[in-house]
């Protein structure tokens, strides 16, 4: 009986020791400039930013027990939100799930390590960076600079012209309804995009496959390059474009019925050059060994 009592005592102690601490929440609201800068940094967890039409920054956080505090500072034209972890956070849960509402005209600057980042209904410039988290954003008419090392990047445009720069090392990049000027760089991530009046498109990949389809603006400038990744462009432009596809050892395909030619009698290398429509734009595709495919339908 005493053994049973002792056992029950030990069990209850163990249960209480391992019972999860109550999740901390954090709420704060500060006034903000309608076009000010909002800086948000968080190591782990998630950052969800939504633009609204109030001149305020509202922060709601669900904080792991390893989070020391959330600092929110406000100066004229500049609001900073920072998740602070103690120096030796050890095994404690240092993640924080932040939901932040900010003036939609703000310039948004987000920096995360493994936190996922999401931004919606923003009208101002966006700079979103995560090391391993996924980054997802709605594009508006302002420029966007989005980076992740190993996380995927997903951007959703609405056909509004903007300067967009997306960069990963191994993460995939997906862009919908891209307009304006688009620049994408990756090493091994795949890149997929739909074009909705893009004025310029520059893509660099080492081994990732690149696929874009849709409509280019009049007089577009397109430069797509990879070492071994496959490059596919199925896009038309009202004024047409002059195209040049060159590869050292890859194949060249097209829907124009044209055939690539050897660039030299004495060395590998093939090229396909021609013009569609009035040729008022320019499309260049290059690879070392990756297959190139161009179509304007």
């Amino acid at each position: 009986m005493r053994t049973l009592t002792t056992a029950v005592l030990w069990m209850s102690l163990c249960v209480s020791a391992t019972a999860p601490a109550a999740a901390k929440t954090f709420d704060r609201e500060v006034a903000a400039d309608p076009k000010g800068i909002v800086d948000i940094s968080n190591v782990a967890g998630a950052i969800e930013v939504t633009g609204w039409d109030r001149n305020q920054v509202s922060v709601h956080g669900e904080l792991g027990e390893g989070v020391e505090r959330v600092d929110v500072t406000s100066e004229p034209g500049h609001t900073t939100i920072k998740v602070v972890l103690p120096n030796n956070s050890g095994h404690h849960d240092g993640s924080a799930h932040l939901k932040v509402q900010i003036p939609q005209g703000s310039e948004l600057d987000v920096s995360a390590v493994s936190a996922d980042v999401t931004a919606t209904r923003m009208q101002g410039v966006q700079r979103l960076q995560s090391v391993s988290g996924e980054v997802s954003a709605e594009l508006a008419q302002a420029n966007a600079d989005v980076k992740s090392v190993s996380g995927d990047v997903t951007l959703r445009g609405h056909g509004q012209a903007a300067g967009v720069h997306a960069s990963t090392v191994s993460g995939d990049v997906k862009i919908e309804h891209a307009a304006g000027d688009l620049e994408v760089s990756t090493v091994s991530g795949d890149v997929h995009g739909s074009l909705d009046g893009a004025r310029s498109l520059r893509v660099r990949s080492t081994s990732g496959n690149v696929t874009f389809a849709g409509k280019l603006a009049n007089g577009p400038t397109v430069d797509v390059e990879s070492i071994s990744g496959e490059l596919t462009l199925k896009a038309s432009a009202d004024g047409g474009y002059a195209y040049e596809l060159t590869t050292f050892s890859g194949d060249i395909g097209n829907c124009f019925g044209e055939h690539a030619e050897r660039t030299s009698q004495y060395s590998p290398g093939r090229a396909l050059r021609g013009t569609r429509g009035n040729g008022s734009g320019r499309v260049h595709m290059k690879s070392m060994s990756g297959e190139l495919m161009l179509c304007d339908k």
Partner: protein
Amino acid sequence: MTQAQAQSGEIDWEAGLVQRARAGDARAFERIYREHSGRVYGLCLRMTRDVQLAEDCTQETFINAWRALGRFETRSTLGTWLHRIAVNVSLSKRRKSGPVESLPDDDTGAIGDWTLETPVEVREIEAAIDALPDGARDALVLHALYGYSHDEAAQMLGLAEGTCKAQLHRARRLLRDRLGMEVLSA
């Protein structure tokens, strides 16, 4: 910062950016660049008529502005101040290309508005402006496109006001010849 201030929009956010940039905050200066690069590049491109030169001019303008931020006085707007720097940079880039043309005698009567008799394609007007001699084009771009007064445009170009007006007259005549229509005064 109080909520009332934010809501009333009284905060001069640009002055705040300038203040931070002056203190060495490159991030604030980048914001200034993002806000004004289009207008600066537009001016540089129209003055230099060359994309590469215009890019150099734009970069040099902002680099010079960064170095001179301590001398920026808020009595002129930041955009105007940047334009002044851009004009200087554009002119210095062009000085190497040859002697400045001398102006024929001209009347310096009212210039007025820059309305066209009939609507014209943007491309056509840009080409016509592009074809103007440097001095006429500079004066036209600053006055007719960017809305600077004769006095302001003259100061930016380092000219006497009368000379600037003469260049504007010349620009108007040449545009009329090129477009085959009057560029009307008010």
